[in-house]
């Protein structure tokens, strides 16, 4: 069965706009944030038009409807990642907040001076800075798994780091720059054997291929709604129930309590314990719709389509004189191509491509240490999702030849 991109594109209203007259949008920036299908936009619109009220504790009809919608989104997300229970699905603002939650609760309760936290050289700043803050507060040490020239984790170094009995290994499932898909199961098995917990940043994996938390056998998984066809403002922390039960609460306030006295409180049960204050209800509804949409297309089909696109894009990019692509070969990565073009700064590449409606990102993509590793200040990055086409790869390549002509 062929992947019907035309049918999918029709689901995304924004894809039919022109960036300027005669320049239809060629959106190659889904790694930063994906576009939204009409199913998501309408679910949120319908929620606000028909069912909005604050959730929990309300007995009136709207409050019950809103609560049911919000909690059914949690069920959909749990099913999407094959969680054991909805109690393991914590709604946060985004993947960043999910990681900060673990660092602030599990980390503060369990880390002591001298304890080792393991990170990698390819992490997004959101999986570096929370741990750096925690390490500074606790006097903990940070060990880094380096990245090879080919853009993969150097696991021989990981093996030696494990000798130091680290407490937690935090790494990305898929690099937002190199596209590298890391061997989560192998790392998790080794980490657990050494007594360490495993936190996976799934911001780039959950939107693009099937992620099953039980098969992966990790302890925490963080991801963001807006990168997977859902709205901004909501993300997910999935955690193993027995760990979440033991962790102290994160933010304090309404909704996260069972009972409040003037000088103390009893925390609510999971998942509410970690969800203080009125949450992003409409966004939760939108995320639920996004998960349903992705499932209806099929994560396997989406992955196959992106693999075909990235293989084509890499082959074509390598043919452009002066282009250097970072990261592993297509079979070992997702739909992300970060590249440089000799003599042209990535900002100029992005700006000139924008004239033709082509949206790519330029900069360090929140991965400064990774760019330091390759001794480059920035890269241009084209990324692909279910709605991208081979014709758009053609437009990218044509655009790059225009850039070369201008700067030649």
């Amino acid at each position: 069965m062929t992947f019907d991109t035309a049918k999918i594109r029709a689901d995304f209203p924004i894809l039919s706009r022109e960036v300027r007259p005669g320049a239809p949008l060629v959106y190659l920036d889904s790694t930063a944030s994906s576009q939204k299908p009409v199913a998501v936009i309408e679910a949120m619109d319908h929620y606000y038009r028909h069912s909005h009220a604050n959730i929990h504790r309300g007995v009136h009809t709207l409050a019950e409807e809103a609560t049911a919608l919000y909690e059914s989104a949690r069920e959909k997300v749990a099913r999407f990642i094959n969680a054991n229970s909805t109690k393991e699905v914590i709604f946060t603002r985004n993947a960043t907040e999910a990681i900060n939650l673990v660092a602030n609760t599990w980390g503060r309760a369990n880390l002591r001076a001298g304890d080792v936290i393991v990170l990698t050289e390819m992490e997004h700043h959101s999986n570096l800075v929370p741990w750096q803050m925690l390490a500074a507060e606790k006097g903990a040490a940070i060990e880094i798994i380096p990245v090879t020239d080919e853009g993969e984790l150097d696991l021989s170094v990981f093996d030696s780091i494990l000798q130091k009995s680290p407490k937690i290994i935090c790494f990305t499932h898929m690099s937002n720059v190199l596209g590298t898909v890391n061997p989560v199961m192998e790392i998790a098995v080794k980490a657990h054997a050494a007594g360490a917990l495993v936190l996976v940043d799934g911001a780039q994996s959950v939107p693009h291929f099937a992620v099953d938390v039980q098969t992966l056998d990790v302890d925490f998984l963080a991801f963001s709604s807006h990168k997977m066809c859902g709205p901004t403002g909501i993300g997910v922390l999935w955690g193993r129930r027995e760990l979440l039960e033991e962790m102290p609460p994160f933010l304090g306030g309404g909704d996260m309590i069972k009972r409040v006295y003037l000088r103390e409180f009893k925390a609510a049960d999971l998942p509410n314990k970690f969800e203080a204050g009125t949450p992003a209800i409409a966004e939760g509804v939108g995320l639920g719709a996004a998960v349903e949409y992705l499932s209806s297309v099929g994560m396997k089909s989406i992955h196959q389509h992106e693999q075909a696109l990235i293989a084509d894009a890499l082959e074509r990019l390598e043919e452009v004189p002066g282009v250097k692509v970072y990261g592993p070969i297509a079979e070992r990565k997702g739909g992300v191509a970060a590249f440089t073009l000799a003599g042209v700064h990535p900002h100029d590449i992005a700006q000139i491509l924008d004239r033709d409606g082509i949206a790519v990102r330029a900069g360090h993509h929140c991965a400064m240490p990774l760019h330091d590793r390759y001794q480059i200040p920035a890269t241009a990055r084209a990324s692909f999702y279910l709605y991208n086409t081979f014709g758009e790869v053609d437009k990218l390549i044509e655009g790059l030849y225009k850039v070369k002509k201008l700067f030649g």
Partner: protein
Amino acid sequence: MDDMYREIILDHYKNPRNRGRLEPADISYEDDNPLCGDRVRIDIRLEGDRVKEIAFSGQGCAISQASASMLTEEVLGKTLAEVKQIDKQEVLEMMGLEQLGPTRIKCALLSLKVLKAGVYGLKGETDTE
């Protein structure tokens, strides 16, 4: 918008004026725009209160480097008091880029920031003293 890469900017980028280093110099300052990796250094030799020689070095996008090149031409021969009068609007007009968006305006104005910091005697991170 569409003429951001007009001939004059590309010309200054490809054939920068006053590119290099002056050592020793009376004024040296360097700064960067960490978000995009643009970096500009400006060295100045004075004769009395007047800019007798000026050079810039660094790396970055066409906008940041062309702006530095154009600014050095503009400043050569001026007194320090005159240099202090140069404002953002003047630099953007000089480049013909009055309509820049919030991200790229930082690229265009990096060289002015470096020039002003140097002229006002701020200690740059590359100051050898």
